C-alpha cells in the first residue's frame, strides 16, 4: 500500500468505495435505461420490444419536434450571446472598479440564482403583461429570450468573476507600462486570461436556456414551443419512446457542449 497518511483505510475505505458506486448507480442508471429504451421497438416505455431506430426517425419526421428544436436553438444562441456580454461586463465592473451602490448591485445581481423558478416565472409574466400594455408586443421569441437572458446573466457573472479574481491586476498595469492603451491592455491581456471563465459562463447559459421549462412555459406565446416544453406537454398525454429519443438527443447535445467547453478550457489553461 502506498496510500498517504490521510488516505482512509480498512472498513472506512470500503464503505466510501461502496458509497461512490451507489452514487454513480443512482446518477447513471436512469440515463442508461433512457438510452436503452429509446431503441426499444415497443409503444410501452419500460418494455423491451427489440431494437429499432424508428423513434429517432419519428423525431426527425415530426414537424412539431423539429420546430421546437429550432426554436430552442435560436433562443439559446441569442440569449447566451447577450447574457455573456452583459454578465462579463457586470463581472468586470464588480471585480475591478469601485462605484456608488456597488454592494447593492452585487446583491441584486445574484438574486435570480436564489429566487425559485416559479417565482421568477410569475415575475416575468407580470412584467411582460404590464410592458405589453405600454409597448404592445406579443409574447414569443422576444419574451422567452429576454427571460433567459435575465436569469443567465447571474450565472455568467459568477463564473467570470471567479476567473477575474484569479488573474493578477498588475498584468494590466504592466501592459500599460508597455505602451498599451486601456483598451489594448484589456484586449490583449485581461480578455485572453479570463476567456476560460467566459467560455464556462457561456456554456452554462446555453445549457440553462436549452433545458428551462418553467419560466419558458409562463412567458411563451403562440408558435413558440421549445424542446423541453414540448416534451413536458407530450408527457402529459402519455410517455412514449419518442420522448426517450428526444431526451437522448438533448442529452447528447448538452454532454457534447460540456465536452467542448472542457476542451476549450484545457487549451486555454496550458497558456496560463
Amino acid at each position: 500500500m502506498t496510500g498517504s497518511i490521510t488516505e482512509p483505510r480498512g472498513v472506512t475505505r470500503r464503505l466510501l468505495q461502496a458509497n461512490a458506486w451507489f452514487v454513480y448507480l443512482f446518477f447513471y442508471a436512469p440515463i442508461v435505461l433512457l438510452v436503452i429504451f429509446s431503441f426499444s421497438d415497443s409503444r410501452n416505455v419500460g418494455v423491451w420490444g427489440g431494437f429499432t431506430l424508428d423513434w429517432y426517425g419519428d423525431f426527425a419526421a415530426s414537424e412539431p419536434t423539429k420546430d421546437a428544436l429550432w426554436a430552442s436553438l435560436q433562443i439559446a444562441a441569442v440569449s447566451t450571446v447577450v447574457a455573456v456580454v452583459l454578465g462579463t461586463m457586470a463581472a468586470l465592473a464588480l471585480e475591478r472598479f469601485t462605484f456608488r451602490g456597488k454592494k447593492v448591485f452585487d446583491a441584486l445581481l445574484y438574486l435570480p440564482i436564489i429566487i425559485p423558478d416559479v417565482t421568477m416565472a410569475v415575475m416575468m409574466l407580470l412584467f411582460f403583461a404590464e410592458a405589453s400594455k405600454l409597448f404592445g408586443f406579443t409574447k414569443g421569441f422576444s419574451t422567452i429570450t429576454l427571460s433567459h437572458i435575465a436569469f443567465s446573466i447571474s450565472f455568467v457573472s459568477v463564473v467570470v468573476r471567479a476567473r477575474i479574481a484569479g488573474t493578477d491586476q498588475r498584468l494590466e498595469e504592466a501592459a500599460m507600462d508597455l505602451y498599451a492603451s486601456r483598451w489594448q491592455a484589456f484586449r490583449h491581456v485581461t480578455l485572453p486570461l479570463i476567456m476560460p471563465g467566459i467560455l464556462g459562463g457561456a456554456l452554462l447559459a446555453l445549457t440553462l436556456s436549452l433545458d428551462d421549462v418553467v419560466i419558458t412555459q409562463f412567458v411563451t406565446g403562440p408558435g413558440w414551443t421549445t424542446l423541453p416544453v414540448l416534451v413536458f406537454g407530450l408527457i402529459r398525454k402519455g410517455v412514449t419512446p419518442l420522448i426517450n429519443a428526444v431526451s437522448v438527443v438533448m442529452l447528447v447535445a448538452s454532454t457534447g457542449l460540456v465536452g467542448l467547453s472542457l476542451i476549450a478550457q484545457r487549451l486555454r489553461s496550458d497558456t496560463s
Partner: protein
Amino acid sequence: MRTGGDTGEDRTVDNSAVDIRGVTKRFGDVVAVDNIDLSIADGEFFAMLGPSGCGKTTTLRMIAGLEFPTEGSLRIFGTEVGTLPPNKRPVNTVFQNYALFPHMNVLDNVGFGLRMQGTGKADARRQAAELIELVQLTGMEQRKPSQLSGGQQQRVALARALVNRPKVLLLDEPLGALDLKLRQEMQTELKSLQRELGVSFVFVTHDQEEALTMSDRIAVMHDGELLQVGSAEELYERPVNRFVADFIGQTNLLDATVLDEDMIVLANGTRVMAPNPHPAGTKVAMSLRPEAIRLGPRGSVPAEHEATSLPGVVAAMTYLGHALVYRVNIDWLELEVRTETVGAQDRLQPGDEVTLWWDRTADWVVPDE
C-alpha cells in the same frame, strides 16, 4: 571631524532624467510619500533604499505613471508628466514579481511593447530576439513564463522593458525573489548592462548592501520621507541622522548630549571630544563604525587619543579568520569592535578591562531623531 548636513539634494539640473519636486502621495489617511525632492541624472544608476513600507514602490509607480502624485511636480527629461498615463511616458518598469504575461511565450512577452507602439510583427520579433540574446535566453523563445526558472523570468522581464529603449528603466526589487548566488551574479550583470546602455536605472531595494555595491547614488527613505541622497561613501561616512547611520552598514550608536561645539557628554557622563554643529543641549547620537574603533589593555591609549577614548570590559570575542569581533561593555551599552586577526597570545579575552579609542575623524555626530 565631519557632521551631518541636509539631504544633499538641492540641485536642479535641467538635463536630469527624472526631476521630482515637492511630491506627496496620499492614500486616504496614509501618507505613502511625503513631500520629496529628487533629481536623477541621465545615465545614472540610482538606488532607492529603505525598509519595507517606506514608499519606494509608490515613488517608482509615480514615475511610471501607474500612480499620480497628490501634490508636487514630476518631470521626465524636462517634460512635466504629472497625470500623463503610463503608455505616454518614455520609461519602462521591471515589476517586483515580473508580471510576465502568462498566456504569451517569451518572444511575444518581449515584443509586446513594440507591438503596442505599432511596430510590425516581423520587426518586433526580430528586435525581441535581439534582446533575448542580450539577456542570454536564446532558445527559450517559445517557452511560457511558467516554464522558466525565477532567474530566467527575471531576464525576460528585463528584456521586455529594455526592448523599448526606455530613457529611464525602473526596477522594483528585481532581485528580491532570487537566491543569493544568482542575486550576486545578476547584480554584476545589471550593473554592466546599465553601463553599456547608458540608460538611467532607478533601482528599488531594501537591501543596503545591494544598493551600496551597484549604485552611483542612493536615496534613503523612511516612513515616506527622503532622508538623504548621496554616494555610497557619503551615506556611509556622513549619514544625516541616526536612522541612516544605523541603516547603512553596521555601526555603534552612542546616545549623547551636546556640550559645546567641540564636546559631547555620553549617556553615562563621560565627556568625549566630538566637534559638531548642533546647539548645546541637543540630543544626539555618535556613530562609531566597528572597524574604526581600536582597543587595548586599560590605560594603553596613546596620548593623542585621550580625548576620544572610553573604558570598557570585553564581553565576548569571535574569531572570523580574517578578523576578530569583540563585544565590549561600556556601562550602558555593548559595542561591536572589529580588528585584524592577531596571534592567539595577543588576543583579548572576555573579562579583560580595556580602553577603546578612535581617530578624531572616525566618529560622526547625528541628531537623535
